[in-house]
């Protein structure tokens, strides 16, 4: 059982470039989330989804987009990358028993 799989693990982007962070889960969880975590800080919710076809903004959605066409996949799109988006990104899924997090994507924008 793989759980939540994120790719890539590391990425360096130049300012203005775009990329998609991939996230897939094999636990059939309806709820999925994207968080960012800056050094020494807690988790900031970017977007979340309560099921296929349904997404909603979190605390810090600006500069990001998401889609949820299937239960398994919840990609996060960065358009026009900025240095402020340098962070570690965690995808997670949830059922009643709690969250399962992916291993994270460390993104640097230069």
């Amino acid at each position, binding site marked *: 059982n793989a759980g939540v799989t994120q790719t890539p693990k590391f990425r360096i982007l130049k300012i203005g470039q775009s990329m998609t962070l991939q996230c897939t889960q094999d636990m059939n969880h309806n709820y999925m989330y994207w968080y960012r975590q800056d050094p020494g800080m*807690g988790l900031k919710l970017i977007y979340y989804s309560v099921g296929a076809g349904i997404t*909603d903004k979190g605390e810090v959605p600006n500069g990001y987009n998401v889609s949820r066409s299937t239960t398994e996949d919840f990609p996060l799109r960065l358009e026009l990358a900025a240095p402020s988006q340098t962070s570690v990104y965690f995808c997670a899924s949830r059922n*009643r028993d709690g*969250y399962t*997090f992916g291993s994270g994507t460390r993104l640097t924008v230069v």
Partner: protein
Amino acid sequence: AQSVSQHNHHVILSEAASLELGCNYSYGGTVNLFWYVQYPGQHLQLLLKYFSGDPLVKGIKGFEAEFIKSKFSFNLRKPSVQWSDTAEYFCAVNQPNAGKSTFGDGTTLTVKP
């Protein structure tokens, strides 16, 4: 809006010392409560959870937490910490059937050997 407060931002202990990390939440209704741990360079993992029943819950690695409804608290405890417990600890709360949980800002625990 629901909020979660973790009062201790950074705790430093020596091995074998006892640990208590505070967590208070603001919502007055029924809640589900969680503690997650993030070891250095890793992702968050579930440590323990409380839904109902016995307010003292036991989790992995000797951790336990006590739900005190009257104090809106869910403090994490461990009788004797080890160097390997060095990590960041997050408290999280959600209403049953809610779309998302609210996380605290985390407490960094450093255990000196």
